[in-house]
């Protein structure tokens, strides 16, 4: 066990990443109480295994990895038998809006409510959702995301690509349904 002062310093540094962990847990579980349980368990585990953390490396990524591994163990079983995404082909929202004559395309994005974006992220299968959370929301590099998830960088890139396609399709469908985009006959 670490010296009390060292443990306190470790805990203080770890707690600076609480919002990242909580956000990630919330998006993975869709439930604040479950997210708090998951994050608390992750912090307790991190404290127990702090000797395995190498000072000066990416503590945020290390903590996130502990939390998401707990998520998969607790909520999804040890096998990551995730639902796969439908093959959308190449769905590029920008091209789609351009085809529909919705110019300037960026105006469409300004009209989409944050809650709809969150709903679209939540609809992604967890294996794809967590890549979007790491790269797009938390700003992880592909390499840090790959290390966090324990997969090759190529897997991060392919999951991110498919997740973004699905996300763009969901936002497009919402924009059409809500009248933000009017389809040309």
């Amino acid at each position: 066990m670490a010296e009390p002062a060292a443990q306190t310093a470790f805990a203080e540094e770890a707690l600076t990443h609480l919002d990242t962990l909580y956000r990630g847990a919330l998006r993975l579980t869709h439930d604040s109480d479950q997210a708090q349980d998951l994050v608390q368990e992750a912090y307790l585990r991190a404290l127990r295994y702090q000797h395995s953390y190498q000072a000066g490396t990416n503590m945020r990524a290390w903590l996130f990895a502990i939390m998401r591994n707990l998520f998969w163990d607790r909520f999804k079983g040890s096998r990551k038998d995730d639902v796969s995404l439908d093959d959308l082909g190449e769905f590029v929202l920008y091209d789609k809006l351009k085809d529909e004559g919705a110019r300037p395309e960026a105006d469409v994005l300004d009209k989409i409510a944050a809650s709809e974006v969150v709903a679209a992220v939540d609809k992604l299968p967890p294996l794809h959702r967590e890549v979007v959370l790491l790269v797009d929301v938390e700003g992880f590099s592909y390499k840090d995301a790959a290390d966090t998830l324990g997969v090759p960088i190529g897997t991060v890139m392919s999951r991110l690509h498919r997740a973004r396609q699905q996300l763009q399709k969901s936002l497009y469908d919402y924009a059409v349904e809500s009248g933000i985009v009017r389809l040309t006959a």
Partner: protein
Amino acid sequence: MRCEECSDKLDRYVDRELNDTEALQVQLHIEGCPDCMDHYEFQDHLKRLVKHSCDCDTAPKAFREKLRQILS
């Protein structure tokens, strides 16, 4: 660089994941191609929209305090 190649690299450009040479090639292309600049700005805007929509959730204060006590 052709527009098709630029489009293929746009996500990695927005993610700051291209090497310096590739990033410069994309930058030079979009600076001289209004359509690709428009596309780049859209993808960048979309990435920021996802970030800002999802990063407003923060840990409840009571939970933060509880954790601080548990970990001390």
